[in-house]
């Protein structure tokens, strides 16, 4: 091709005389720099990639839903837990490293990244007890005021660590009597999900020590219809979807959690046939009161299958507003969803083939399909 182009240029020279033969000016010398992030956009999304095929090398991709560009990367180690600070300024990664790369002494650590630069700004070494599991919002989480950071432990004995991120210290460990994960509420409360279908809520003092604990009434039945642990943030707490498609909205604004009456995603005829599924099983636009759920047809044991449709619900009326078939849009089944919280929202949908689709969240129109955004995008976060 290159010789053909040169030949074409030579022919032009012969045909048009000397002016056409003048060499173009040389390119200017370049100055190597490090790119700086643009100002934060509500259409950014942090895409957690487990990198399952080579699991010691997980990472978080920062992706822009307007320019469809990757803006940068945060390294995340082995089976990490990832979350954002309440002000969106910091990404926290709780992870494990082995002294010789894939083997050797294990060090558990939480690492902090400044989201304006994507530079690491510090770490806190943990006891080697961090839960190593699929991602959720509750593997590592900040208190509402950012004063405390909670890290779920499982050895398999269940407990959690209370950290002071401002001073880089582990303040202590609190046993959770077999209940798991850290659901933060207010400045000083942590709830954990119990096998009995109850929530254990521990209240802390200013130093991160336990002052009281309470056990709720059961709000689901782990035998009959378990809830996914991948809760979805609502205006006053979190919503938990069940395997069969019940929505359990839990208000965490008071001293103890309060449970709204569950409501179904499916009709009586659809129950047991259509289900939510995947790794991040729902997204909520809190201002508009809209719930997005990847749904598929399948029976027991298909709760991690991706959605062939995304169903849209109104949280106030519980009405289904739309069904968006994703296969018609050229997508593989959807295993994770997230929605931006602005007035012109976009819906992100990650697929089994690691593609990330960008939809207009109001109309369902597919704006872009980003192919292969990492290996295994299982959780998406936005500020």
């Amino acid at each position, binding site marked *: 091709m290159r010789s053909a182009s040169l030949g074409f240029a030579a022919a032009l020279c012969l045909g048009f005389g000397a002016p056409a033969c003048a060499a173009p000016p040389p390119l200017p010398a370049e100055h190597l720099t490090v790119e700086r992030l643009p100002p934060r956009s509500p259409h950014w999304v942090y895409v957690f990639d487990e990198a399952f095929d*080579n699991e010691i090398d997980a990472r978080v991709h920062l992706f822009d839903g307007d320019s469809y560009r990757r803006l940068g990367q945060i390294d995340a180690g082995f089976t990490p837990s990832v979350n954002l600070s309440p002000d969106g300024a910091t990404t926290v990664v709780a992870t494990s490293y082995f002294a010789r790369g894939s083997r050797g002494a294990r060090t558990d650590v939480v690492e902090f990244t400044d989201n304006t630069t994507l530079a690491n700004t510090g770490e806190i070494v943990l006891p080697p007890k961090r839960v190593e*599991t699929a991602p959720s919002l509750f593997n590592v989480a900040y208190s509402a005021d950012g004063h405390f950071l909670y890290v779920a432990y*499982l050895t*398999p004995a269940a407990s959690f660590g209370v950290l002071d991120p401002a001073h880089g210290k582990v303040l202590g460990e609190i046993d959770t009597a077999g209940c*798991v994960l850290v659901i933060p509420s207010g400045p000083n409360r942590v709830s954990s999900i119990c096998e009995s279908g109850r929530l254990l809520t521990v209240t802390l003092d200013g130093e991160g020590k336990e002052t009281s604990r309470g056990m709720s009434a059961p709000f689901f039945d*782990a035998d009959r219809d378990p809830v996914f642990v991948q809760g979805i943030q609502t205006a006053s707490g979190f919503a938990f979807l069940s395997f069969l498609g019940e929505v359990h909205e839990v208000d965490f604004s008071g001293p103890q959690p309060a449970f709204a009456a569950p409501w179904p995603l499916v009709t009586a005829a659809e129950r047991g046939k259509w289900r939510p599924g995947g790794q991040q099983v729902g997204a909520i636009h809190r201002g508009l009161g809209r719930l997005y759920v990847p749904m598929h047809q399948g029976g027991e*044991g298909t*709760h991690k299958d991706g959605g062939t449709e995304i169903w849209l619900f109104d949280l106030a009326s519980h009405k289904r507003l739309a069904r968006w078939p994703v296969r018609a849009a050229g997508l593989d089944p959807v295993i994770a969803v997230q929605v931006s919280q602005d007035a012109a929202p976009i819906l992100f949908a990650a697929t089994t083939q690691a593609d990330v689709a960008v939809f207009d969240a109001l109309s369902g129109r597919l704006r872009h399909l980003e192919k292969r955004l990492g290996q295994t995008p299982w959780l998406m976060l936005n500020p």
Partner: protein
Amino acid sequence: MRSIDRLFERSSRSLARRTSRRSLLGTLGRLLTGAALLPLLPLDRSGRARAGEAAPGPDSPENCQYWKYCAIDGFLCACCGGTSSSCPPGTAVSPITWIGTCHNPADGRDYILSYNDCCGKTSCGNCECNRNEREKPMYRPSRNNDLNWCMANADSNYHCSVSVILGVAEK
């Protein structure tokens, strides 16, 4: 006619030398089993399956649809240098585990299976398999396959997963 007889006799004897009644029954059996399982095969139960992976038959421990794998989540050790019940060379067995119950279509029995992980090397990356029959979230850890069951090993890196028969499930 005689020549035709001889031709058929030769070909029959040749076939008989190369095969046996048992293999004929085996072939027929495989065909029948395959036909019975055929409606199940197109379902992608993994949610993360890779296109183009080699697909030995469902009676092979290198196939995600193998009956012992009904609640497994990870890379099949049988594709990584081990078997369905042994870890690959140089790895270590996880002493703690999760438990599943799977139906063996060959003998009609339900078996209790221990899904141990093999630990100490980074993920095998071959034959990823995620099935979730009777699997529960991590608040019921003994039935959960999301957890890294190498968590309590001295070297807790995850390599692959096996499925070990513990016994027949009592009704």
